[in-house]
């Protein structure tokens, strides 16, 4: 990854993750990588290929399969002034590290006033037939815990700026990468390495009839569906939240006040997902602007099936998203 990017004008989502890590390690000697297979193997998805050679074993640390210990070690390193970037091979495995994340990382600053600059990267999501323990969307577990920022880029060009901002943040950030997007999405030109501001949503398509609030892979589904619906005369405004914590509800509310209708889309399970919170805040802040109930589109309330057709049936599909948008915009 490291050498590949230099002379290319096209990069993948995956390239952008690597470029962001590389740039920040290059810039700041306190930044180091830690996780299973991040060194020798170059990462489960090859994000960190070449990093061991470039930065050496003190800054690219392979660990045993022990997420609790890895995360605890990162917390300790952060306490002595380093800026660890933990990689979870699959976001599903993060539940092993639940205790240090919740009870150590998330509240350290609240307890002591001190910084806790740990970044946790985790590939998540379905569509790869990886089954119930390698396909989950985990943002809602952590969104309920104060003290953890949750960054979920959808567009390749946002990946590196948001990752760099996450590493520089003085407190824990969970950086969730939709692995389905890794090699399917391409950005043009050189990777932007200027940090973005966390907590700022982006209107990625303007529209007048209905607002689609989404993030991560939903951005691409949403943009494709919006393009289709435009042919039927339905104008969809698509908002990429980019970070679900902090939630940029102002951008959402401003859009809903304009369109008077909202649909929330995410790959995570609808039940108690981010859509519930966003929908609730919309009605609290823009009730008198609503022409339709806010609708949520997301996964069914079941574990992700291994069977490809069942998996597709579980997670939101373009037809379902289009139908929801059409209903809300037209009924």
């Amino acid at each position, binding site marked *: 990854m490291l050498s590949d990017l230099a002379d290319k004008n096209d990069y993948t989502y995956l390239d952008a993750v690597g470029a962001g890590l590389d740039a920040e390690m290059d810039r700041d000697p306190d930044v180091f990588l830690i996780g299973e297979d991040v060194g020798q193997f170059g990462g489960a998805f090859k994000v960190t290929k070449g990093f061991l050679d470039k930065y050496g074993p003190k800054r690219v640390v392979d660990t045993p399969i022990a997420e609790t210990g890895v995360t605890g070690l990162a917390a300790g390193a952060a306490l002595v002034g380093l800026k660890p970037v933990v990689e979870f091979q699959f976001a599903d495995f993060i539940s092993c590290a639940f205790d240090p994340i919740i009870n150590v990382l998330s509240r350290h600053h609240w307890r002591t006033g001190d910084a806790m600059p740990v970044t946790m990267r985790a590939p998540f999501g379905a569509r790869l037939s990886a089954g119930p323990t390698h396909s989950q969307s985990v943002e809602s577990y952590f969104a309920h815990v104060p003290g953890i920022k949750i960054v979920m880029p959808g567009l390749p060009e946002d990946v590196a700026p948001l990752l760099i901002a996450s590493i520089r943040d003085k407190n824990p950030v969970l950086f969730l990468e939709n692995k389905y997007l890794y090699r399917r999405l391409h950005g043009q030109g050189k990777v932007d390495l200027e940090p973005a501001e966390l907590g700022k949503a982006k209107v990625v398509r303007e529209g007048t009839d209905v607002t689609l609030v989404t993030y991560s892979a939903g951005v691409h589904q949403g943009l494709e569906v919006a393009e289709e619906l435009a042919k039927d005369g339905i104008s969809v405004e698509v908002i990429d939240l980019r970070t679900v914590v902090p939630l940029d509800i102002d951008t959402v509310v401003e859009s809903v006040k304009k369109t*008077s*209708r909202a649909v929330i889309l995410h790959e995570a399970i609808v039940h108690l997902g981010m859509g519930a919170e966003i929908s609730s805040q919309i009605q609290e802040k823009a009730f008198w*602007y*609503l*022409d*339709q109930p806010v609708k949520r589109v997301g996964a069914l309330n079941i574990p992700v099936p291994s069977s490809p057709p069942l998996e597709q049936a579980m997670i939101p599909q373009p037809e379902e998203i289009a139908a929801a948008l059409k209903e809300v915009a037209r*009924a």
Partner: protein
Amino acid sequence: MSDEINVVTMPKLGETVTEGTIGSWLKNVGDTVEFDDPLFEVSTDKVDSEIPSPYDGVILEILVPAGETVPVGTEVVKIGAPGASLDSAPASPAAAPAAEAAPAAAAPAPAAGGSGFAGAVHDLTMPKLGETVAEGTIGAWLKNAGDSIEFDDPLLEVSTDKVDSEIPSPYDGVLLEILVPAGETVPIGTVIARIGEPGAEGAAAAAPAAAPSAPAATGAAPAAGDGKPAAAGGAGVMLSPLVRRLAAEHNLDVSQISGTGAGGRVRREDVEQAIASGGAKAAPAAAAPAAAAAAPAAKPAAAAAPAASGGFVATQVPGTNDPRDRTEKLSRMRQAVGNGMLNSRALAPQVWASIEVDYENIENVRKKYKNEFRAQTGAGLSYLVFIARAVCEILHKYPAVNSSLDWEAKTQTFHPYVNLGIAVDMDEQGLVVPVINDADQLNLRGIATQIKAKAGLARGKKLGADQMRGSTFTITNPGPVESYASSPIINQPNSGILCTDGVHRKPVAVGDTIAIHHIGIIGLVYDHRSFDGVTTGKFLLDLRNVLQDRDWEAELGL
């Protein structure tokens, strides 16, 4: 209490509903009813509803038969206490101490009248004086317990965080008991007093135990409501929050908007279309601002009014599309004049007042001296010259008339000098208002020459912008085209504009004889924020008297 009698009134089933028709009675006289039992059906022009009983008890009398239409608030049925029988009559509420001996029930109501009847005791509740008002403070009781009161008599003063109001009595009768003393704050709907029928004595013991609060006392909540919110477009219609808000802001009757959504639902786009086309205006009752001292029933309308007018946006009404029409771009001057007019109308509440002036005295002076005056000054001795002179003098007596408002800064600036604006016609292409600075320091000759000079500059388009700025008061003079009485628009930032209309020969009474005099109307359009009608009246009267009585010959200085 065994002699308790409750009265159910025609409920208000929507903001703009003023009457209702009894569709059918679901209970008969003598029937026992329980709280929430359907009592009768009501049809309004918006909605049909079953009205549940607000009381447990026995139907004593049906006052309005099925098929009849009566105003909201009309008493339609009397309900006695549970177990009451029909044929027995209590003497009056004052007879209560003996009630356990007397069979419980009510006397038949007087056949006519409908205001009060033997035994009726009304609960008066804290009225809802605004949409968002949750409680009210009793400022003062204007009647004492035992006082006789008539419908609409001021009964008490209520302060809320929005408004202070006098609450008139909704009943004829006697104030039996004051339950909440002055100074106390209670939630909306709290029973604050009891009112007995006319002639009843003020015995607290006579009051029935607290019944569900009397709807007629507030006029806001529908009596025995069915739980559905009263929508801007009428109860029973499913409207989205956005549609409700837009309809309220634009004073639209949603029932007149055809919906394009599922099942005919009115969508955002339908309302926007209605707003753009200026259609579907609600009945005036919904928007009419109620006077401050209006009866309680008018309160909901008063509360709704600001919202209804607050969001109003004027929209262009499409004109004809006739090939014979000729459409031209507006000239810069037309636009400037138009913008000035729009701005003034939007800024100031403008009121016109007028007075008739006998110019005979002035006419005699004019006739005698106008040639000599013109020869000496080059200016005509028009009526306007005399009026301008008199106005400059009188404005010193009425500083408010010669003032400028800054409403945002909440200030009023008084000018101890008169910079007099004179509206000048620009060959029917527009108006300009040259200003005569310190016009109050000029005598008749000075004013006459200044008017001529400024008008000449204006018509020659030689006026500088600074010569059209700084007026403190303005005169417009349609008199030469023989107008009768005109109502101009104030030249901002003035507080008034004087209009001198045509002078005509008219028969007038002089003493006990009829003479022919030169008579004309002078009008003042004034900014009612700056001062009030009395000031205007006095100002115009002084102006008339000076014009009529002044020794103008001496003032001419010829």
